[in-house]
């Protein structure tokens, strides 16, 4: 993980700084594409001739859809890392599970917020209780909010790793429900089926959508990397604190007193010495 130019106690490296700059530049390009170069969704009714469509609200697509897909990816990575925690039991998997869960939860919250903002002009409501995908996404958010609450409890880290892994693996069972809800409960959702599968969008709109996947992919990659490094430093700080506390405690007592306390005699110490 440590790069040559990495300073101790920082989360930056040459690679991650470059990644951050590329992600930032991509966000600027995406902004230009989404707000200036692509047009609003305006269609003409074939019989009445009236204008209809999503108008400018369609631009939310470039934010909402990639975030939703990357949310799935983050939570699936979290699930894979949680399996790693249970099988390998090493801190690397645990820090990875924690990082991806945190980034995934932020994305899930943003998916709900951007969806709500988009829903106001298009569905004429901020929130639709009858929509299955909305409900299952909200439940997913609450499940991972619980996961993060568990991670903030102070307990034995090894025990917490296992607990968090189980919670994450139960929580990701909701993902197939979120993903397939539009197909399984077609009459109980306002969400549309994937327009990409049916190739209803094309040209610059399609390109911008694909570019938004790439951009947010870079952003999420950068965020996860940074969060992983922060998590790794947190672990190192805890280990360091425990190590120095043990050293301090030992320094309070002389070696002879320690030997006497654990019942080792001077002769035994002499025998043990080379």
């Amino acid at each position, binding site marked *: 993980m440590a790069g040559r130019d990495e300073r101790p106690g920082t989360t930056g490296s040459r690679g991650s700084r470059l990644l951050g700059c590329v992600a930032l530049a991509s966000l600027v390009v995406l902004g230009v594409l989404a707000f200036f170069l692509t047009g609003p969704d305006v269609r003409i009714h074939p019989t009445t001739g009236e204008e209809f469509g999503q108008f400018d609200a369609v631009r939310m697509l470039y934010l909402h859809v990639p975030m939703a897909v990357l949310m799935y990816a983050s939570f699936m990575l979290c699930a894979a890392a949680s399996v790693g925690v*249970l099988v390998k039991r090493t801190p690397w998997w645990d820090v990875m599970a924690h990082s991806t869960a945190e980034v995934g939860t932020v994305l899930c919250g943003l998916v709900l917020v951007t969806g709500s903002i988009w829903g106001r002009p298009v569905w004429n409501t901020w929130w639709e209780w009858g929509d299955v995908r909305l409900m299952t996404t909200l*439940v997913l958010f*609450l*499940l991972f909010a619980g996961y993060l609450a568990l991670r903030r409890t102070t307990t034995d880290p090894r025990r917490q790793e*296992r607990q968090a892994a*189980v919670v994450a*693996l139960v929580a990701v069972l909701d993902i197939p429900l979120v993903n397939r809800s539009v197909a399984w409960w077609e009459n109980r959702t306002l969400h549309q089926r994937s327009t990409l599968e049916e190739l209803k969008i094309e040209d610059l709109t399609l390109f911008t959508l694909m570019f938004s996947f790439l951009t947010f992919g870079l952003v999420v990659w950068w965020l996860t990397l940074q969060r992983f490094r922060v998590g790794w430093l947190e672990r190192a700080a805890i280990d360091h604190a425990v190590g120095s506390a043990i050293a301090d405690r030992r320094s309070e007592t002389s070696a002879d007193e320690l030997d006497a306390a654990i019942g080792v005699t001077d002769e035994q110490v002499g025998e043990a010495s080379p």
Partner: protein
Amino acid sequence: MSEVRRFLGDARLVAARDLRIEFRSRVVVGQVVPFALLVLVLFGFALDADHRTLRTFASGLFWVAVLLSALLAVHRSAALEQSDGTLDALRMSGLPPAALFIGKATAVFVQLVVLEVVLLGGLLVLYGVQVVDPVLLVVAGLLAGVAVAAAGTLYGALASGLGVRETLLPILLLPVLAPVLIGATRAFDDALGAVAVDGWAWTGLLAVAALIATVVGALAHGVLIED
């Protein structure tokens, strides 16, 4: 075959122990059930004791009362293992963790069934509901009870030993039980004739939830209680 019998025997041992403690301490009967009835009464006050409103929302209010009360029952079940090094003793006993889980979940399930029966009496008397399909009511009630007991026992074991388990358990458990709440409410809507829905389809969802909660709980319990 003998292994299955031994497994079930171990589970029965744990369930009988938990139920014996409950029978002697009467915490669920004396505190959790009255709490559930109190919640029903408070809903009545909050909705201004309008019979028609209460009948319309009876299923949802019933299951919210069950879930809130189940939190207390689960908390109690997990707390049993925390005193006098009981969990250490259980670890040393050689009982399979899955049998321990099934035993504890069974005890919680029995307590939930008692709770549901008393609450149903409350619905009939206080809210004036009528049972249209008793078979659907019983099947949905039992399946939802299994799902709540299994998920509750899993998360109870998970939160036990944490200093903040009283506040953490609801945050972890209630979102997991959201599908059970939805399915059980719709099934009861049909069974009580409140709303025209296909209650048996929702009962299918409850069966899937009960199965998943039981299997995941039995598999994960060992990981959670090991030290």
